[in-house]
């Protein structure tokens, strides 16, 4: 799985293709559609990274955190398992099923674990929620176990990623055999990379999965801001920073989605000056308190989470993002072509506004399997 970037390595810079497809009815469908959508934007990636996140794929383990771990060696895997089992009970584990794909010469060991936090761990960390403890386990493995990397840690969802074109990665992970109500995908065009499987996107933490196109010029301060709250960015990627920000603002600070997005892509002061008094007070407070969370520079991002999907653009719209709806399905993509490929006649199609989130939300609990 090759070297990860060292701490002094220049920040990882990449351009990309992104897609998200979600059934707001919670209808589950297999991965062939999203693979076609991302494949048509092949020009936006260069074979150095691709990946997917799928929500609703492990209904039989829906109450357990699903850890996807990649390891360089059996030893690394053992060390990771040891560290995980200190705070977690493993209910089930198995190799992640794969299919031979000609393009991949090497690949890491890929294994998944369905875990829950042990009672002792809860007692030892009485101030923390299960989610907080899981975050610590993930950060500990990723920071301290050489050659092991947890790349997915949510419940009833999973991240699948690696070095290659996204359609090859999908083929490799047999995504045609999974059914999910939300799929997000990423094709990567890094301008400098170590070809590390863990460095591919989406980046996942708990049930957050983020795919992103752009380069965030505020990275340096976003990273330091997150460090105040115990998040240690080790991957030098913008996607990692965006994921942690969503986790901090929405899960830990309990901000409504709209306010979290306002913190990350705030209105201009000149717009704030024209808002009604109450709204103005809110916007001023958000900008002055959450300045470290402002994402500056060009980006378009699709964020997956258990209850929905968010498409989100920088506030002056320096990267493309198109959205569409038909029936119960919300589509978000870097290019219209990707949407038309899998939904030739959308009832609604629009270009995302800078800083205004596009939100897909589950109407009810996901319904049982319906053919896609």
């Amino acid at each position, binding site marked *: 799985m090759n070297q990860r970037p060292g701490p002094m390595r220049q920040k990882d810079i990449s351009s990309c293709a992104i897609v998200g497809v979600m059934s707001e009815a919670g209808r589950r469908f297999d991965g062939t559609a999203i693979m076609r959508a991302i494949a048509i934007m092949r020009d936006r990636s260069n074979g150095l990274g691709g990946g997917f996140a799928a929500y609703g794929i492990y209904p039989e383990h829906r109450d357990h955190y699903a850890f996807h771990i990649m390891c360089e060696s059996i030893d690394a895997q053992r060390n990771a398992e040891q560290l995980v089992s200190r705070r977690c009970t493993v209910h089930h584990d198995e190799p992640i099923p794969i299919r031979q794909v000609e393009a991949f010469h090497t690949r890491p060991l890929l294994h998944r674990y369905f875990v829950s936090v042990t009672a002792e761990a809860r007692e030892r960390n009485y101030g923390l929620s299960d989610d907080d403890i899981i975050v610590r386990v993930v950060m500990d493995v990723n920071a301290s176990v050489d050659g092991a990397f947890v790349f997915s840690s949510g419940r009833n969802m999973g991240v699948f990623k690696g070095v290659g074109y996204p359609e090859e990665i999908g083929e490799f992970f047999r995504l045609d055999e999974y059914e999910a109500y939300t799929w997000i995908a990423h094709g990567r065009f890094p301008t400098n990379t170590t070809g590390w499987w863990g460095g591919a996107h989406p980046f996942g933490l708990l049930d957050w999965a983020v795919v992103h196109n752009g380069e965030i010029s505020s*990275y340096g301060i976003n990273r330091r801001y997150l460090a105040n709250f115990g998040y240690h960015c080790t991957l030098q990627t913008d996607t990692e920073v965006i994921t942690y920000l969503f986790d901090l603002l929405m899960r830990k600070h309990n901000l409504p989605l709209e306010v979290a997005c306002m913190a990350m892509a705030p209105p201009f002061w000149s717009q704030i000056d024209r808002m009604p008094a109450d709204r103005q007070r809110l916007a001023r407070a958000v900008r002055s308190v959450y300045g470290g969370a402002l994402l500056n520079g060009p980006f378009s991002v699709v964020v997956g989470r258990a209850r929905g999907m968010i498409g989100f653009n920088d506030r002056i719209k320096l990267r493309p993002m198109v959205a569409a709806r038909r029936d119960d399905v919300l589509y978000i993509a870097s290019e219209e072509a990707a949407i038309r490929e899998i939904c030739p006649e959308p009832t609604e199609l629009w270009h995302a506004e800078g800083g205004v989130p596009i939100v897909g939300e589950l109407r009810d609990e996901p319904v049982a399997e319906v053919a896609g």
Partner: protein
Amino acid sequence: MSQLRKWLVEPDFIVVRDPERCIQCQVCVRQCANDVHEYDSDEDVVLSDSSDCVGCHRCATLCPTNAVSIKRAELEFRPHGNWEAAVLRNLYRQAETGGVLLAGMGNDQPAPVYWDRLLLNASQVTNPSIDPLREPMELVTYLGRKPDMLEIEARGVSPRLTTTLAPQLELRVPVMFSAMSYGSISYHASIALARAAAAAGTFANSGEGGLHEGLREYGDHMIVQVASGRFGVDVDYLNVAAAVEIKIGQGAKPGIGGHLPGEKVDAGVSATRMIPEGTDALSPAPHHDIYSIEDLRQLVFAIKEATGYAKPVAVKIAAVHNISAIASGAVRAGADIVVIDGFRGGTGAAPMMIRNNVGLPIEFALAAVDSRLREEGIRNQASLVVAGGFRSSADVVKAIALGADAVYIATAALVAMGCHLCQKCYTGKCNWGIATQDPYLTKRLNPNIATRRLVNLLNAWAHEITEMMGGMGINAVESLRGNREHLRGVGLTDRELRILEIKAAGE
């Protein structure tokens, strides 16, 4: 004690007059408060005695025929690496007077300026730069205590803020005018600073000399100082201002107090400082009610009580060796803004040995404090303002990238008003009408013109800051603040890079 008829100290400057250009108009005679020029009516000739020339260029600048120029008096001592000319001059001076060597303005020694060893980033290809002439560029900065998080009530149609924020100062440009007391500078200079701050959407600091009645109408744009001498401090003084700053120390003279000579204490200064006319105004070295960090906390909260918790309280400290622990203590003592003044910071008067040898470069102090406060998770509890020799908008951008919320300037503002940095502020004979109370001299500074020049300076810097930010692909100053990814060091040691927490050029 008998005085030598002639000083052993030779003049610093030589006045050169071109007799063919001189028209005997005597502008120079009238302009020089040091009596360097003299008109001989018998011969109809203007003569100059260079020995008292301070090099302020007032005569040369105003001479209508450009007949006067000022040169450095290069009396050549035999070269010596240790016993340089400046050293010898100081020794002659002290042998003559038996006194402490005085100096005005900031440290004039060639100590390294680390700003010049930091280089800024710009966008190319992977990230577009942003054109500030076409796109909004935001410099608005809020100074004051911020909570860790906001509480929002999400029920109902739109989210509602339930957190009450601590009082904040709103800056339209992240540059303020640093403390300069009325007394050390003239009323005209003070009023120009206050007016310019109001016009540019920033703040001017009163210094420790109280607030003249005429300046109180600009209170919304003034920060008033409470220093060890407590001059001019009463409850009205605290309440008329936008914020209150407790001055613990000053970069030019950490660890010592201040001294405004009685000669500068005229009726106006006397009324404003609340001291008798003609008496020396002595600020003790420490605050005599602050001998520990818990004492500081009491003063911070005494001021908050007196002002109804409606104004941010700043604590200004000089950059000294243990600066990060001290700054952390100040935040924990309740400071809403911590001001750090580096060793190049200016002054109206300081003992030369202290000015030139005590303290730390602001670059290191800032980097260390910002990192320390972040490590402790209290960086959001106070804003960080830095001062001490900021020369240009590039210095400001680099300071913000290192972690400052805003920058204080004073020397640059004086220069904008006409100061030529002759460094003789403590004599009270400022020919530019700035650092003097002599009405014959102060009327030379037109407050309206000075205001315009100060506003021009701030506007020019703001424009340059947005250009640099746009180049980095940043359109809001909060994304530059503490963003050390946009800095690279040149010619710095590994250790210096580590303290600044920046990468070397090429990394």
